[in-house]
């Protein structure tokens, strides 16, 4: 009983010291508060996968009423800003100088061949930005279809098979809907793994840990008192993202709130586990920070399904992602936010994260004990 009280007192003292250290170091506050805010603003307002108006140089070699109408259809489209030029050479020069994103050529025999049902349009895009080029090719179908419809009379352009699509969970096709859930994961990764790794490695590097070891402090108590303040800092980041999602971006939360909290806390424990483990093993701030960055932050950004969809990756890369906690966390957050409480997704993913957290914390505990002997 007395033992227990002493244990608690030691943990309290060390937690207090750690908390003060966070509060007094401007860089910890910067990472705990400024970083989430910065990411929210960057992802909310800076990153957009929706392409705005594309500029296109149009060469009309046909100059008939039909081709003029087609140029008009492009001019009226919200997706294109049209620059009319007189020759293909001029258009090519504009593409090369990056003055326009692409070029459209209406050949001189356009009307004649259209009457025989074999007209051609040429579109030239700059492939250095393949995503934009592909979007441009897709957008170009719009004005062309509109023009065909106006020429062929009612019902003329609609193909035999018409696709009527509905996007579930995100009817308005708003990219914030999938960026905000991923953002929570990113913020927790930085605070949990990156910051914690540096802090613990510093104690090893400076030798203050050895000083602690001559006190009655146990390894477990030491780890717990490191764990607690950074867990709190991570939860502050979580709350900031939560508020931004609700009030700035109006992303609906369709799953139960307590599950979202449970999932986030479990992931935060994994991130902290990685941070503590890495720093205990390498004991150098430089190495610990680089390792934490390579092992957690970059995968959370690139290999988690946050920016780039897992379904776009080749099978062996997808295999690697199964070893990365961020993958499970992003799946969880996206599902809980947008689809709701889907049992077959939520519980297995939380289970994997919980197992990872337990394994990492246990491994850290064992590694710390070894150092003591």
């Amino acid at each position, binding site marked *: 009983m007395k033992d227990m009280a002493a244990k608690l007192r030691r943990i309290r003292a060390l937690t207090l010291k750690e908390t003060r250290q966070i509060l007094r*170091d401007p860089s910890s506050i910067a*990472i705990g508060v400024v970083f989430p805010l910065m990411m929210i603003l960057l992802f909310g307002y800076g990153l957009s996968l929706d392409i705005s108006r594309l500029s296109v140089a149009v060469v009309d070699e046909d100059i008939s009423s039909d081709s003029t109408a087609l140029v008009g259809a492009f001019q009226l489209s919200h997706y294109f800003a049209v620059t009319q030029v007189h020759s293909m050479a001029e258009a090519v020069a504009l593409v090369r100088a990056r003055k326009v994103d692409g070029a459209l050529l209406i050949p001189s025999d356009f009307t004649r061949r259209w009457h025989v049902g074999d007209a051609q349009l040429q579109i030239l895009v700059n492939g250095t930005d393949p995503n934009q080029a592909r979007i441009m090719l897709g957008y170009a179908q719009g004005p062309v279809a509109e023009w065909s419809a106006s020429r062929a009379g009612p019902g003329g352009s609609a193909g035999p098979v018409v696709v009527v*699509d509905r996007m579930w969970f995100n009817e308005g096709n708003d990219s914030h809907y999938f960026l905000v859930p991923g953002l929570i994961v990113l913020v927790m990764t930085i605070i949990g793994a990156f910051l914690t790794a*540096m802090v613990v490695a510093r104690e090893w590097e400076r030798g203050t840990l050895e000083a602690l070891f001559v006190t009655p402090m146990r390894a477990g108590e030491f780890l717990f008192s490191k764990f607690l303040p950074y867990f709190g800092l991570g939860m502050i980041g979580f709350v900031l993202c939560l508020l931004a999602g609700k009030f700035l971006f109006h992303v609906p939360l369709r799953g139960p709130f307590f599950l979202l909290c449970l999932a986030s806390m479990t992931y935060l424990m994994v991130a902290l586990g990685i941070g503590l483990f890495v720093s205990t093993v390498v004991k150098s701030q*430089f190495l610990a920070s680089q390792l934490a960055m390579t092992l957690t932050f970059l995968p959370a950004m690139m290999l988690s399904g946050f920016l780039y*969809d897992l379904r776009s990756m080749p099978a062996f890369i997808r295999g690697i992602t199964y070893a990365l906690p961020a993958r499970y966390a992003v799946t969880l957050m996206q599902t809980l936010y947008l689809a709701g409480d889907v049992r077959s997704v939520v519980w297995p993913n939380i289970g994997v994260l919980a197992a990872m957290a337990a394994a990492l914390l246990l491994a850290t505990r064992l590694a710390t004990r070894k150092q003591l002997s």
Partner: protein
Amino acid sequence: MRSSLLRILALIRKEFLAVLKDPRSRFIIFLPPILQCLLFGYAASFDLNSVAYAVLDRDHSRASAAFLARLDGSGIFLRKADLSRNGDIAAWIDSSRALLVIQIDRDFERRLLAGEPAPIQVVADGRNSNTAGTALGYLGTLVDSFNADWRSLHGQPGPPIRIVTRSWYNPNLDSRWSMIPSLIGTLTMMGTLMLTALSVAREREQGTFDQLLVTPFRPFEIMAGKALPNMVIGLTQSTTILLIAQFWFHIPFKGSFAILYAGLGLFLLAAVGLGLFVSSIAKTMQQAMLYAFLLVMPFALLSGLATPISSMPAFLQSAMVINPLRYALDLTKRVYLEDAGFAQLYPDFLPLTILGLLTLSGAAWLFSKRLT
């Protein structure tokens, strides 16, 4: 002059030793860029290789079978299930087993034969709306080609217009061709800026910086001694990625190495300058690391690497005038893929030069201010 040069050389030697002596730190300087380059080369893509879908075919006609055969034969669409009830749709989408569920109505074939529009209903999993949009785009292309064939088979007028496309510099519109050259600048900047910021902060934290100050070194010499080795390491990282791009991913290099390296050199001046800038503000390694991170993040995210700069709001577009990575990305991509020369690249060279000079002289000023 000569003694000054000798002093700088000695410092450079010391700096290389400090970084490269420890095998673990050698490892950490070169392994992550290689690993990241390989991983991102494969992972960072908006192209979809396979679309898992389920189908609810109420028509069970020859036309619907032909339509589905078209999807299955595409090599992209993978049929995971034939559903029989409306109620099954939600389960397949919710659990992410299918990205799309396609419903074909009972009168599909009848309407097609009658020349009426025959709608098919598609439900897409919008949890990642970008992916869903891409999948719907692929479906649209397949439907178009099905329509064209159906029309010509059944004597209806063919599609009035064919669109012929040509893509410059990247004939197959492969995402990787744009991604990997972009990584040359991005990964190099991340590595170099942090390395520089940490190298000064480490000396400060370990107290060796004070020792350096009592030597005959002048502030300028200390700075040059810190900047040059990190630039060399940065150029080595760039070269590594360049080699991977050409010999692993087989992306043809069209341009001139001289122009590329001139651009990278200027870019590294700016990156190292920013690193020194951070290190003159930071008191500890932790601060240096975190501030460097807070600087690199927005620069990397808003450089045009992930999303085009032209889609960003106006105030961010003007703020990105000071982002060296943005010019470096444009420059490396255009030299690499387009064989662009100085005449086309001065909009990148000019700001890079200015930024390099500004950050370095700013850092020098802060340095000497803090030293005295």
